[in-house]
């Protein structure tokens, strides 16, 4: 599966753009602010029906315009499939697959998988547990449609329960039966989510380990572990035990919404003790493992989106990555670079189909096949 064509209208800094791609490497080059990353984001949008950087669609419209559209033509086993995403101010966004509008946007997730590697990835290490949950949730959702439904159901019970705790705080009337009703919902769906996350991590682990070894060599051992309140022996009891704290804080303090994924290197927290380079290797290994597991589960190669990757990597890691590319590990690759000559020299040695797009202020300047 690969993206053959993309058409943008009023998306971010593009007024109107139409590009054709080949199944190989597509390098997008141009100065800072020219719109390279926005183009990657448009591809991300086609796959996951949202921007990788800004969840507010209104702000993804080009300044002074009222709507944006993104149209993509994917090729899967030689037959074209079109995906259309459109958003108009104050309207619901529309996602169409082969001219048909989806009833639920969630049906689209996983059909055209992408893996994006961007400078923002370091939020996974630096930010709180929510960023890590979001990352793993989005990977699992790409390979398991039911997972997303379970998450939504869990979220519903959590919100109702928190609303109940707030009303209690204001009115001082406690309804234990109602709280237990929401506990039961959270326990039911929480258990499913817990089991899926645990199972996923078991599958994910070997991919992650081997990617890290390839990038950084045998000398370091990274650890990735999953921590959840649901790991306790009696989680139902834990909900009851937290009752008083919940009432005081007006929110639910136990549950799957507080899970965390722990990143460590030689048993020490990566955030505090990992060097810049080690952190980069860790993140890259996470993303490449994501690529590997999606490829295995869906039996197709996700499109790889590499944003400013050359700035992030030293020569050794770059070499490791280029080697993986040359071994046909990946399918179609989009990458951005502010320095065309660097991309040319890195990619020149590769025996893959390559195209370079020179982008200037939201317009295509020229195309070069090399």
């Amino acid at each position: 599966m690969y993206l053959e064509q993309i058409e943008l209208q009023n998306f971010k800094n593009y007024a109107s753009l139409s590009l054709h791609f080949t199944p190989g490497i597509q390098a997008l080059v141009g100065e800072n602010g020219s719109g390279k990353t926005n183009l990657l984001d448009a591809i991300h949008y086609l796959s996951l029906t949202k921007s990788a950087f800004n969840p507010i669609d209104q702000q993804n419209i080009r300044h002074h315009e009222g709507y944006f559209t993104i149209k993509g033509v994917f090729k899967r086993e030689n037959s074209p499939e079109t995906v259309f995403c459109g958003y108009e101010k104050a309207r619901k966004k529309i996602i169409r697959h082969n001219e048909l509008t989806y009833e639920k946007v969630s049906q689209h997730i996983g059909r055209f998988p992408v893996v994006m590697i961007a400078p923002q990835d370091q939020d996974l290490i630096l930010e709180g547990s929510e960023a890590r949950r979001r990352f793993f949730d989005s990977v699992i959702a790409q390979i398991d449609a039911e997972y997303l439904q379970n998450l939504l159901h869990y979220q519903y019970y959590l919100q109702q329960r928190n609303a109940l705790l707030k009303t209690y705080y204001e009115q001082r009337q406690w309804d234990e039966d109602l709280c237990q009703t929401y506990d039961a919902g959270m326990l039911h769906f929480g258990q499913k989510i817990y089991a899926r996350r645990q199972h996923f991590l078991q599958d994910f682990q070997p991919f992650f380990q081997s990617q890290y070894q390839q990038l950084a060599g045998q000398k370091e051992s990274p650890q990735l572990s999953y921590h959840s309140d649901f790991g306790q022996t009696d989680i139902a009891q834990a909900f009851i035990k937290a009752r008083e704290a919940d009432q005081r804080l007006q929110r639910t303090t136990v549950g799957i919404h507080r899970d965390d994924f722990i990143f460590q290197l030689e048993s020490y927290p990566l955030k505090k003790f990992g060097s810049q380079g080690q952190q980069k290797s860790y993140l890259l290994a996470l993303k490449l493992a994501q690529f590997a597991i999606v490829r295995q589960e869906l039996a197709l190669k996700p499109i790889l989106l590499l944003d400013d990757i050359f700035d992030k990597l030293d020569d050794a890691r770059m070499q490791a990555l280029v080697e993986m590319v040359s071994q046909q590990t990946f399918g179609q690759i989009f990458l951005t670079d502010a320095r065309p000559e660097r991309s040319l020299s890195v990619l020149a040695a590769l025996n893959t189909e390559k195209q370079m797009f020179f982008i200037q202020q939201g317009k295509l300047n020229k195309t070069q096949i090399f």
Partner: protein
Amino acid sequence: MQVFASKLIENAVQEIAKLPGIGSKTALRLVLHLLKQNETTTLALTEALRRLRQDIQYCRHCHFIADAPECSICLARHRDRSLVCVVESPQDVMAVENTAQYQGLYHVLGGVISPMAGVSPSDLKIDTLVERVQKSECKEVIFALSPTMEGDTTTFYITKKLRDFPLKISTIARGVPIGSELEYADEITLGRSILTRTSYE
């Protein structure tokens, strides 16, 4: 804002446009229609509405709409008093009645529980239901609430309240609508109806 020739018309239009499903254009059409008719037509309408508002009562047993302290269903001799069907609104009573398949009594909750929407159990007629099944000859409570998460939560909650009484508790079946095509049924409903299939007799 539309300009009306008369303040009287404007007032009437504004009042009628407050009704669900009626915009100001339709309201104006209705008002002009009433003016064209005899005066008695309008007075009959206002009188009917006034009496509706002032005289309507809610049944003291089941909270269904009634003209007297007890509704016609609760008063009917032939109905099976061992069955109570729990519904959200008076419309739901009418919907079940229209099936002509049910001969028991009802209980109208007046809504479903949702703390997010500001509806707590005390806003609904749950206490009277618990009291009622305790004191009456009720043997089975049938939940006929909408198959939404709020509906399911409400069923679960009330079931908790009723657990100490010797009652049979049931909910209406969920499945594929009769006369529809299987291939067009939504996945969740179809999946559920496979899981809760009934044996063929």
